């Protein structure tokens, strides 16, 4: 295993160790307001990720929006095979955590530097909740 290109420390974390392609959003996220829960694509008109698929992605969002729906929604999209692999929040809310734990999807909150400084959409990253660490392993095509 090669050394990571960069790492981010997170404040709180839950879930399995996962690797995947990063999606870095400048806008917050809600699975009911923003996401089409039949395709895994962000469909809210005007969302900065409109048209982007979150399926199997490691998703970086600055904030969580609204959302009691996340409680069931993550389990539902996991069941449909269109869930993200991890949700990396700057600031999240309890329901995102309750929903991710219920669906056994990795989730973290807080970061020691803005992710955009070290990771871009398309990069390959590993999330290790037990070590509260996110490592950037490979640059994507830019």
């Amino acid at each position: 295993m090669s050394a990571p290109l960069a790492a981010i420390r997170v404040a709180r974390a839950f879930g399995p160790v996962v690797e995947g392609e990063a999606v870095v959003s400048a806008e917050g996220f809600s699975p009911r307001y923003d996401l089409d829960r039949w395709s895994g694509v962000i469909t809210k008109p005007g969302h900065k990720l409109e048209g982007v698929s979150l399926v199997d992605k490691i998703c970086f969002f600055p904030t969580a929006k609204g959302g009691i729906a996340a409680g069931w929604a993550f389990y539902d999209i996991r069941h449909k095979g269109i869930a993200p692999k991890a949700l990396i929040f700057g600031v999240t809310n309890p329901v995102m955590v309750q929903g991710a734990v219920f669906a056994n999807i990795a989730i973290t909150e807080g970061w020691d530097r803005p992710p955009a400084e070290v990771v871009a959409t398309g990069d390959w990253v590993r999330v290790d909740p037990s070590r509260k660490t996110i490592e950037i392993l490979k640059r994507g095509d830019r």
Partner: protein
Amino acid sequence: MLSGARGEAARAALAYQVQVGEFWDAERFVPITNAHMMGDIEVMGDGGLGWLREACAKRAHCEVPITTNARCFDFDFVERLGQDAGEAEKERQVIRLLRDMNVVTTDTCINYQTVYQPHLGEHVAWGDTGTVIYANSVFGARSNFEGGPAAFAAALTGRTPDYGFHLDRHRKGNLVVRLEADCRDLADWGAVGKIVGERHQRYFAVPVFTAPRRAPIADELKHLGCALASYGSMAMFHMVGVTPEAPTLEAALGGNRPDDEIVVTDADLERVYAGYDLKDRSCNLVVFSGPQLSLLEMKRLAEAFAGRRVHAGTQVFVTTFSGVKSAAARLGYLQAIEQAGATVLEGVCFYILQNLSQMRLKNGWSNMISNSAKIVNIIGAHRFNTILRRTRDCVDIACEGKLR
């Protein structure tokens, strides 16, 4: 309980609550007296339905009274709305399973106006967000946002992890909003929630409103809270002289130095209304929903629609709690609204109606006009272009067929 002495369902529920509590560094559990859960087939999907079946097979039984939030079918309107009969049958199964597990299927997002009003300091486990912010702010009760599985787990175990808004330290205000605007309509209060919520999208942001021109009534606090929760993911606010933990600004802040001081003026409200793109200026869909309407909102709407007709080609939907609908029928409000040509649905919220995206296409809806700032925000994933207007303007738009 973790050893399974109270059954596998309670054991699994508590194990799940421990994981959630650990994420938030909760040190203990607090007992709860009431829970309120979201559980509809649109959000649960087949995965969630399967999970409920398993829980029922494990003889899950709620110990604490638990009610259900609005769902995605009014079974009297499945055909008329072109909804999927198979999904409706699944929704019926959800309801049956929940009842078998001792859940009270009220199907309302305004439980705090219609079913249960917790007292100051009472710990509950509620969701949706509108119910939680009302419980924390207006009643002084204590709840976090609890998603469906979390509220259900709390009702099974009778407790919830002690973090967030159960703790004194998170309940103090940390931003101040000077309310100079003359809020006269529910939509104005929603617009205030939008302005403040968009600026501070943070669960632990607790705005303190000062100097309202007059004390708002319950329905106005409801729209303010729903908008703050929807735009800002907020779970609590204070209003000095109005809400129980804010006798003074100092008490509401509890020693916090506010992060931000916002002034909301009439001009700010007008900017909100002017800020919507009217697109093709179509106005064939006007919605009063999200949150469901109280009996007094139904009364006012009945008065506004009395003697008028909804414009040909325009559809108007109103959603409410079953008990409110039956009371409105007894009082004649329902007839006044329906005679104008509006459709009144019970037990649902418009934005979670099953098949809504297809309904939108079939009916040629593009703009959705509403007096609810929450629904204007929340319905985006169904690709509506949404426009907030005051209640009276919504009625005029619906009856005149002209968007303004």
